[in-house]
């Protein structure tokens, strides 16, 4: 149950509260470049979500099985060349970034083959944008976030398992799709407006993106509130002033707060 709540909170945080585009600034290039029509934006969003989930699966698996110190595959192979003690501690995390970018490139290749076979019309409308997903910061960013929760954590208990990794990646992609579809809807309307010439295309998109980011800031704190409400209560409560019997906090008719000490 706690695991399920944790996954839901990761999903909510990745999709809305810490939205990949509007909070972490990853995936800006397609956000500004591809968001002219809603169908195009929706297709791009789904493609990115698909790729990000596969890439996250690949990077989590390779990180936990091969790269971190004490990983099964690397210890096994190193066991042939080195004494057991050194083989168990072999640390390949320096190769993380190279491994991630190549797993992203492979995921994009795989998705490209899949789309070309089963959705040929969509494939043609994508044109050059599908291979360009490789350079989408959002996918590498998801892999890096997963890496920061797996490599170098203080407690082995806190290291993320596959479920959390895929939840973050998939819902991060969904968040990207939400942002890009909203932007494309706005831009479709914007075509009927008289935008000053220096601001056409990119500049006005960024300004609107800023206003969208302000709107999404309203979601801050939702996950911490839900977490406190839903998680099992710790034995010691958070420090609410209502708990202390010595002081009583009231709010009077004008909305002013005051304190009264009850002896």
């Amino acid at each position, binding site marked *: 149950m706690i695991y399920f709540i944790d996954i839901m909170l990761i999903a909510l945080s990745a999709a809305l509260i810490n939205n990949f585009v509007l909070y972490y600034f990853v995936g800006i*290039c397609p956000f500004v470049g591809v968001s002219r029509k809603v169908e195009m934006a929706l297709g791009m969003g789904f493609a990115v979500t698909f790729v990000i989930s596969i890439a996250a699966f690949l990077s989590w698996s390779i990180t936990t099985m091969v790269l971190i110190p004490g990983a099964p595959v690397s210890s096994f192979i190193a066991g042939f060349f080195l004494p057991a003690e050194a083989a168990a501690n072999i640390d390949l995390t320096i190769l993380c970034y190279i491994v991630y970018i190549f797993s992203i*490139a492979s995921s994009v290749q795989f998705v490209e083959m899949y789309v070309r076979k089963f959705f040929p019309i969509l494939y043609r409308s994508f044109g050059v944008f599908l291979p360009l997903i490789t350079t989408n910061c959002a996918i*590498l960013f998801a892999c890096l976030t997963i890496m920061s929760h797996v490599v170098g954590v203080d407690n082995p208990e806190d290291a993320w398992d596959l479920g959390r990794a895929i939840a973050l990646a998939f819902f991060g992609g969904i968040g990207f799709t939400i942002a890009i579809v909203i932007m494309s809807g706005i831009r479709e309307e914007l075509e009927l407006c008289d935008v000053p010439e220096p*601001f056409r295309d990119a500049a006005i998109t960024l*300004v609107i993106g800023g206003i969208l*980011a302000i709107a999404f800031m309203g979601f801050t704190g939702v996950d911490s509130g839900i977490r406190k409400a839903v998680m099992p209560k710790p034995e010691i409560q958070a420090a609410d002033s209502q708990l202390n019997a010595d002081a009583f906090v009231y709010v009077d008719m004008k909305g002013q707060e005051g304190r009264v000490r009850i002896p």
Partner: protein
Amino acid sequence: MADLPTATERFIQGILPENPVYRQMLGLCPTLAVTNGMKPALTMACSVAFVLLCANIVISLIRNLLKPHLRIVVFTLTIATFVTIADRFLAAYLFQMSKTLGPYIPLIIVNCLIICRCEVCASKQSVFTASADAMGQALGFGLALSSIAAVREILGTGMFFGIRVLPEAWPDWVIMVLPPGAFLTLGLLLGLVNWLGMIKARRAGNDA
């Protein structure tokens, strides 16, 4: 086949006429993310300069051995290696800054700017020209990042490089150091640069 630009032309083009952020719109992710202070912005600009220079030199040295199908793989491998080196050096010698910049240093790998320069210049021209191109583009990138960071830091905290420049009574525009401020600042500055470009083009058209 048209003549490729010389080294000096590459260098000068990179600073303003083909500025990576304001003209080519490449590398927007770090531009928005690290510009909430001058120090992170300059650290990021130096890291990008390092990776760009090294990658351009290496690619230019092996440009005659590149096969068309595998060249993207070679570019990616080179860039990823140099980014790893830059990241480890920052973590070792500028630990606090490395923590502030966080995941945005590894994101240099997918910065379209570097792959674009490798493709357009380094794979076709000599080491000297490629280096000049890298320096020019890096300088342009640094200028762009500094301009945005200056606006955000001064308006958002009243400080520049950590030194107070606005009076204490200035109410900090906190929105400037938060994500929306990045979008708004870049959008408005981009509009300004476009407008200046339009005036210049109109004046050149009038003179002709």
